[in-house]
């Protein structure tokens, strides 16, 4: 789950990271009131779940209340890479002497949290990684001991070799960020930039946190952080129903059990010249209700002209899937053709159940995909 900058900063604050004050506003007057509360100058920052806000004009430095009003008015409602800005963060502007990048993510290879830090702060770190990878320092944190003092300080000294005070501040920030990462079950946490003012104060100016969806169950409060307005309506419905769903642009609705098979099915639709309307994994469980929910969500898309079930039964049993499909089709008024391919555990029982219906059966994946594309027209 991606969260907004201001939400990430709330988490950072709870873990003692030095975040300048700030509050969000949904309207221009609110923004001005906040600016008056903090005193000028302030930053007006769009809160959208995408990068590149600055380039898009979504971040403004304001020296007067008129500036704030103009900026808030311009930014609220702005579209940034398909995301509409509903909120702006008003935060006191600070003088910047130097900028750093501090980030952490889950590293698949070391199987640890990887700390990355660079004195090239305030710019796109992906670009730094491509152009000058030697300017990014990395350290995989041993979960048994955490980020040790000498490791953190050593990293700080790589960023500011001649300033022990700043190196200590940077190191302490990394240690707090690690505690925040683990404590919040993040999958990514970035401060970009971490800055020093001319008087040597450190501030986390920008914050980015992605939360591990698998760990949300132990952070019940985080559910409130989800920006429902930024989420696709059908994706939200699928999530609530416990389905893995991604909306695409095609006309062949896909219901597949298993993420890998679902991706392969999409790829195959494309291979045969069709366009998949979605990714949908009905998961390892075989609850017929899930199938009903899945069908409902897919059929809400008026572009969908045919539906393709591709089920290979392992933990999901084909008879349960068949029951779900039958229950769904009986209870719904479905006008698009449905192609069903069932193989695996209890496939005989499953096919026997389907035989009595007017669904289009298919033996293989390729046959099913071709038939669905054909029926979608």
């Amino acid at each position: 789950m991606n969260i907004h900058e201001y939400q990430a900063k709330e988490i950072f604050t709870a873990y003692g990271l030095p975040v300048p004050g700030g509050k969000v506003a949904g309207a221009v007057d609110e923004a001005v009131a906040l600016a008056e509360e903090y005193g000028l100058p302030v930053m007006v920052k769009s809160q959208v779940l995408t990068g590149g806000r600055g380039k898009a004009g979504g971040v403004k430095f304001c020296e007067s209340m008129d500036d704030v009003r103009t900026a808030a008015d311009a930014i609220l409602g702005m579209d940034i890479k398909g995301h509409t800005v509903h909120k702006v963060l008003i935060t006191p502007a600070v003088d910047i002497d130097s900028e750093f990048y501090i980030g952490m993510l889950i590293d698949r290879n070391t199987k640890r949290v990887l700390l990355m830090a660079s004195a090239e702060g305030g710019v796109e770190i992906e670009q730094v990684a491509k152009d000058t990878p030697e300017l990014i320092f990395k350290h995989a944190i041993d979960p048994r001991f955490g980020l040790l003092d000498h490791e953190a300080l050593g990293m700080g000294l790589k960023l500011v070799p001649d300033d022990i005070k700043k190196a200590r501040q940077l190191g302490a920030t990394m240690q707090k960020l690690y505690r925040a990462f683990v404590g919040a079950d993040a999958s990514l946490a970035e401060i970009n930039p971490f800055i020093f003012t001319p008087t040597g104060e450190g501030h986390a100016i920008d914050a980015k946190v992605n939360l591990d969806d698998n760990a949300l169950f132990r952070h019940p409060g985080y559910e409130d952080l989800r920006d429902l307005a930024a989420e696709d309506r059908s994706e939200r419905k699928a999530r609530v129903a416990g389905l893995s769903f991604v909306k695409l642009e095609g006309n062949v609705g896909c219901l597949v059990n298993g993420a890998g098979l679902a991706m392969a099915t999409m790829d195959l639709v494309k291979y045969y010249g069709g366009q998949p309307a979605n990714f949908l994994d009905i998961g390892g469980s075989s609850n017929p209700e899930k199938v009903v929910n899945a069908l409902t969500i897919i059929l809400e898309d008026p572009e969908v002209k045919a539906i393709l079930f591709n089920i290979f039964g392992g933990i999901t049993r084909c008879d349960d899937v068949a029951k779900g499909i039958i229950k769904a089709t009986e209870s719904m008024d479905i006008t698009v053709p449905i192609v069903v391919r069932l193989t695996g555990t209890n496939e005989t029982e499953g096919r026997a159940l389907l035989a009595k219906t007017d669904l289009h059966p298919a033996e293989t994946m390729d046959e099913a995909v071709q038939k669905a594309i054909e029926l979608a027209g």
Partner: protein
Amino acid sequence: MAIFVDDSTKVVVQGITGRDGGFHTREMIAYGTDVVAGVTPGRGGQVFDDKVPVYDSVAEAVEKHGANTSVIFVPPFGAAGAVFEAADAGCKLVVCITEGVPTVDMVKVMPFLKERGVRLIGPNCPGLLAPGIAKLGILPASIVKDGPVGLVSRSGTLTYEVVYQLTAAGLGQSTCLGIGGDPVIGTNFLDAIEAFNADPKTEAFVMIGEIGGDAEERAAEYIKAHVKKPVVAFIAGQTAPPGKRMGHAGAIVSGGSGTAAEKIKALEAAGIPVAERPLDIVPKLQEIWKR
């Protein structure tokens, strides 16, 4: 022969009294797997299906029945704890089927396993099926056939699809292994490929990757340097949009890396044929194998 299991494999099932745990324990036993005990805390003293004794802890199952392998079917919040328990009790192979385990939990468990020399498969995986030896997990036994082809995959059902086609083509399997779709997993492509390369029964193998991370690229390098056996690969997710998690927690193109195109390029650069469709895997393998 097979990888990771042999005739001495004695299984304890953690979460045996749950719906999925119970169902698949029956399937494992039906296949001939030596399931010696089950564990569900609070159910110690019960007997599953009048056959398998249930204990409160893995330690008891190890002590009383010599279990050396655990298959885990417990809910996500308890899954990492179950892995810790199995490893602590002395199991040397742990297969965690559970989907939805917090990644930080797996990060914590990894050094514990390393210290004890324990191999973990998964989590969020279908497990392993070594035809004629053992079935550890949820791979459907009906589709496998004993033979010389190894198969390793990040996926579940896509694995079955390929096994099905191998079997249909008369190509039996030495071991079918699903390593799981999460970002942090116990056994990865490299481990599996190293094992297949060393396994005398395995004459050729298939690797099924997907978007996210660079495990396929690393495997490609290894294969180029060390593997003489024929290998065919398939990568799922060519049409996946960037930044979206495609079901599996690990299946995501982020920051422009982990794309199917990159992986296919790396595999082909290492001389490994990459099938365009699942259907092409078997013919490609037959083509380069020329046996």
